[in-house]
């Protein structure tokens, strides 16, 4: 990759599709590995992206997952035209969840996803409007803590 170039990937994610849930995140992870990004950074990006992808599938009826990899950082943007989040501060609290029973049976719905995205990323931004949808932007600097 040269300075001003970036590598982009974008995926449509279908709502309620648990068979394929996580496929977009897995493909982004493979691309980052191929590009030679350090394993600890790839892991943080994969976890953050997967949490956002699962939210779109569980709470928003589908959306888009996009990755843009620069030399110094990766940006993940996850958008949906779902119901939106009425109280973002509440949603960002650990343990707050409106996940339906079937999601809980699959091991989700602990209200940990958004806090985990904040934790994994270096920059986190959420825009959400009721009846319009939700957009999450995460930036991950390529600064490895691996020796």
């Amino acid at each position: 990759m040269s300075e001003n170039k970036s590598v982009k990937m974008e995926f449509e994610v279908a709502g309620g599709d648990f068979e394929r849930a996580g496929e977009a995140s897995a493909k982004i992870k493979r691309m980052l590995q191929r590009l030679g990004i350090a394993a600890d950074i790839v892991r943080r990006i994969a976890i953050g992206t997967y949490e956002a992808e699962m939210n779109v599938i569980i709470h928003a009826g589908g959306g888009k997952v996009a990755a843009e990899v620069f030399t110094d950082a990766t940006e993940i943007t996850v958008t949906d035209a779902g119901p939106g989040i009425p109280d973002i501060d509440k949603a960002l609290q650990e343990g707050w969840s409106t996940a339906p029973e079937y999601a809980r049976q699959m091991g989700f719905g602990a209200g940990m996803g958004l806090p985990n995205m904040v934790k994994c990323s270096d920059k986190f931004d959420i825009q959400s409007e009721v009846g319009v949808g939700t957009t999450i932007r995460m930036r991950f600097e390529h600064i490895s803590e691996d020796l």
Partner: protein
Amino acid sequence: MQLKDVKELLRAKVLTGEGLLDREVETCCGSDLMSDVLAFTKRRTLLCTGLTNLQVIRTADMTDLCALVIVRGKIPGGEILEAAAENGLPVLATQHTLFEACGILYQAGIKGCSKKEDDHE
């Protein structure tokens, strides 16, 4: 400890990944909650779980888990094992319950994933 020691300790059956049993296991997590696995595990952690759906394999992939131990004698479906094999993720099955499996491994010296234990390193 290596995965093959885990296999011995839990008298487990290897469902996939027979060739990867020399993997090193340092930390372990026992949970049916993928939300917690995503939020609290470290790299190369062993996951003991009673869940056998595709999301367990995906979660293992995203968090770089070293292997899965399925408890209570459950056997996951063929497509789950295929996905695990594709990702190079060993899957073991034991008759022990989640509590027992974790207890046996803890007693044998495997650490948990909590931050507190991290401080002691």
